[in-house]
């Protein structure tokens, strides 16, 4: 049903493009600058509002082959707090060294309010490292992922002690909507997803530095229940290739006091329910053939399948406990592949299926873009 509505919306969106451009043309004509191929003529905000109703089933090992395993190990098995970032202005992957210095000086200056800090050779127990994680991108439009690490040395440590990693974060864009990314002027770099982990004060300092240095805006990103359902389904779909452990779902029911319900499903049961949904749908698809080729594909997962899967789980729960979960909201999903929370925390435990998760999160982040 969602699919139909989205089809109906498409023409509206395409008209929207015209509208913006139309209004721009007024400005252009009187400013008589810039040619007709203007960048302000795009309207990513409104075109990308469309929700994805069908995704590719995750494939394993796309990342593990291309990314340096050492770097990859830094990204997995850690809980990340998600934020969305508007496109970075004048960000250069070649300037990372200088950014390290600037961020360090900024942190030191903020730490000791009012004491100025020279940018060159600021002395501190902290060390900031920016690095590029190559090979994460799935399309040519995706900018390379940037990893920021802050190491610290405790006061009592001796000279030779290695610095401890106190904060890390990475900016990434995996399969970002090409319409959106291409519509941006050349001097913007679109890395809409920021994952951070570490001390809160450092997070806020890094964020405010990013905002000042690249004139971007950063806001917190939560994962709504639809996207959590997607993750549950996509992860379950991986079960035959890689054991998902247990599928754990957490619902929050709006009662007083709030009731949290944890629902753990045996992986094999989850998989069977899921594959039966898939089979069922594909049969239907074949019956009234030709409606859509995409949905019948083995590679792609449809939103209908996802909702049916979750509904099946909910029904099962209702049979046993007489509690209707549809009144509540899905607040957490976890499997052996990862854990995602409604509050925007995510932990990716296996790098194999990382891309699918990140694609979904990139999409969530792009949906938050104000323009």
């Amino acid at each position: 049903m969602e699919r139909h509505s989205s089809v109906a919306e498409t023409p509206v969106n395409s008209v929207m493009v015209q509208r913006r451009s139309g209004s721009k043309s007024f400005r252009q004509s009187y400013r008589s600058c810039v040619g007709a191929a203007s960048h302000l003529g795009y309207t990513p905000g409104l075109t990308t509002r469309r929700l994805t109703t069908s995704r590719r089933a995750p494939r394993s090992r796309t990342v593990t082959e291309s990314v340096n395993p050492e770097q990859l190990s830094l990204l997995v098995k850690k809980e990340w707090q998600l934020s969305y970032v508007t496109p970075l202005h004048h960000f250069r992957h070649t300037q990372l060294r200088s950014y390290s210095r600037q961020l360090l000086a900024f942190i030191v200056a903020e730490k000791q309010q009012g004491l100025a800090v020279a940018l060159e050779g600021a002395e501190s127990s902290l060390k900031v490292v920016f690095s590029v994680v190559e090979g994460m991108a799935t399309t040519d439009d995706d900018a390379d992922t940037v990893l920021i690490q802050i190491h610290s040395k405790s006061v009592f440590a001796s000279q030779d002690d290695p610095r401890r990693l106190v904060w890390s974060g990475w900016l990434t864009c995996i399969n970002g909507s090409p319409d959106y990314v291409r519509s941006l002027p050349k001097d913007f770099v679109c890395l809409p997803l920021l994952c951070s982990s570490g001390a809160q004060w450092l997070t806020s300092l890094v964020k405010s530095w990013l905002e000042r240095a690249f004139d971007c805006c950063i806001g917190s990103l939560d994962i709504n229940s639809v996207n959590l359902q997607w993750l549950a389904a996509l992860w379950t779909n991986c079960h035959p290739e890689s054991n998902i452990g247990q599928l754990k779902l957490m619902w929050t029911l709006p009662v007083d006091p709030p009731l949290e319900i944890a629902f753990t499903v045996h992986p094999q049961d989850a998989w069977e329910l899921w594959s039966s949904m898939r089979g069922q749908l594909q049969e239907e698809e074949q019956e009234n053939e030709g409606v859509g080729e995409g949905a019948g594909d083995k590679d792609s997962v449809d939103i209908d399948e996802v909702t049916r899967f979750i509904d099946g789980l909910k029904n099962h729960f209702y049979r046993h406990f007489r509690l209707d979960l549809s009144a509540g909201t899905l607040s957490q999903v976890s499997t052996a592949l990862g854990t995602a929370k409604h509050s925007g925390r995510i932990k990716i435990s296996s790098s194999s299926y990382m891309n699918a998760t990140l694609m979904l999160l990139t999409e969530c982040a792009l949906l938050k873009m104000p323009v």
Partner: protein
Amino acid sequence: MATSQNSSGPPDLDSSSPSDQSACSRSSNRSLRVAEIERRKNEAEDPFVLALKYFSDVEAGTPVTGNDDVERNLVAVERVAYSKGLPPEAISIMLEFAMSLRMGTSPCVRVLKCLIPATVVPQEAVVRAVVWLCVGKIPLSTQVLFIKWVLTMFDMIDAKDQLHSIYGFLFSFVTEENLVCVVMILLHCLRLFRVRKLLDLQSKMGRQPFLMHLLSLYKVFCPELVTLSLPSRMKAGFRNHNSQWKSALIAVQKKNSFQVTSSVSLTVRLKDKTNPRKRKHNHLEVPALSSAVNTQTNPSSSRKLVPLVQLHSFSLLLENLHHIELPAQMGSLLGSSLALQYLDCVQDESAFLRLNFWLGHALHEEFLFCSSGVSQNSEEVLQFLDRLLSSQHFLQEGFSSTEAFLYKFLNIWDGSLLRPQILGMLSNIPVVPSSCIRQLLFEPLMQLFFTSTLFFKCGLIECLNSMLLKWLTWHSVYALEDGLDISLNSHTSINMTLSGFKDSLMELVHFVGRLASVGLQIEGCHSLLLSFILDFYETVCDMFLKYGLPLVVMPPAGVFYPALFATDPVSVDRLAHIMYRYKVNLMSAKTQEKQTEQAFHISRQTYREFNHYLVVMVNCLWNSKMFQPGMGVEMEEELLVSSKVPQYWSSFDFIHHPAFLSYAVDFHHKCWPGSRNVDFNSIKHPKPWGWYLEYLYAQGFEGLKQFVQSNISRRSTAGDGQGDGLSADQR
């Protein structure tokens, strides 16, 4: 101490100044030659000139105490200084006298205090004084006083090149309070080792406020060298150097009607801390203006760019208009009035995009994403939106991010939260194409309109009126520039064509027509609402003549009849005015159509509607032929008879119309003061009818006058006295 010494100065000077001025004005009448002689003679006797002579010639070591000459001459100088200010030569002489300590330190302080320049301070004088400073005999307090003086007068020093070359000397005076003097120089020359030295100094002396200020200036001018975050509690700026000098200077400048605009303000701009309480979310904080660190410009190839932070006056902005470097955060432009001026001529699209990202983010986070709900009317939200509105007002256009935001926000708005601000933003949105105007704008607005109070309805109609006005103004500006058809010079299909624009406009006018019809019904034809609706139609009826848009849209019956039968005469009068303007517009459109044979034309339907309304109005107000078949309002004969209203057909003419009845009674009293019975029919005779009309016009009903005069040709001698000709038959 300073006040007690100088307190005698200004008062007695004030008494002398009028005589000076009058002498001036008298001499101006004479011929130049005579004036010249007079001037020379005056000069020779002028105690001021004599005093200057005395101070430049006085020998070192002359005693001060008990020396009447010194006292007298000093008073003479002070008198001039505080009344007119000292000319440059006098400044040189007095500064030289004071700093050389020819008569010791005691007159030195007094002289420094009265060094108020009339126009400029010669650079050489300052340089010489610095030389004396280096000799080192001057007591510390006097040194400080001198440096403060330089700082206060810094803008008035005529050139600064030599000062720059003695920068090193000045820098060596970096000891506590003296340090401030460096500030002025560093504005123009900065070197890396200086920063180092200051940083060293800071590590020795700790967080001295003046050091912080100096370093924060470095931060402004050399963001790539130093970074610093200022504690929020720090007071802004340096201590006021000497308010006494300043006030004296201002007084003198006022008198000379000569204003040196302070080009360099030595205050560090801090974020305005309106609210000490830290908000949980501070999306709405306008970032401080600061220069970008990561500018990618190649210093060798490109012209030197001036960061916007360094510009403090409009003239400086104009001088540097073509090589201004945008600030690190575009959002900061909203915080400064000067920057807004610049924003108006920024042609950089990514700059606008950056601004829109920031603005959209702030609005989204505050109103849409905020889980805790919108902070109700908090002071900050209000301030932010008002600032946004005034910026949009200044730029005369809305930001695209507010537009995108509004389309979403309208769906969840309750219609009361920040109503004036939201409606203000709404009225700024640019033309929406007719294909999506319904979904984006009309549907949410319709819901709000029908479920809200009368005041919201009025507010919304007013907002839509100003939106229409802006669209029309926009059209009249751009369309004229680009020729009638805007699509002509576009290379792509994405531009808005004139017909597209007309469609959108028509949609808007029809939409308001629908809102108005139903709104009037719901609110029982409330006259306040009616007034706002008539405002709207006053704009609509003149679209062709005022804005050159070949489009005439008549009001729907739901607006026309309530206005025609309104109980207040003002509404009827305004309706008459609107009908008159419609007529003028239609007539001129018709003649233009005939003359130029251009493709545009106004549909026959519009003419028909207009004629119909006109006939109704004339029949109703003038001919007393209400309820006739074929008119808009028809009723069955029997029903009318059973209502037992006598002469129901005339119940809405100028006499019996509820809005004018009281005027008719009043007129009757004036015409026939004696008669007890009010017989309205007597007014209908030709002569009193004419008088009655004049009487109505005299009450200020201009619209009625225009309407009657343009539409009704009265046969002055006609028997029944009632005009009947309809001149308006445009078909």
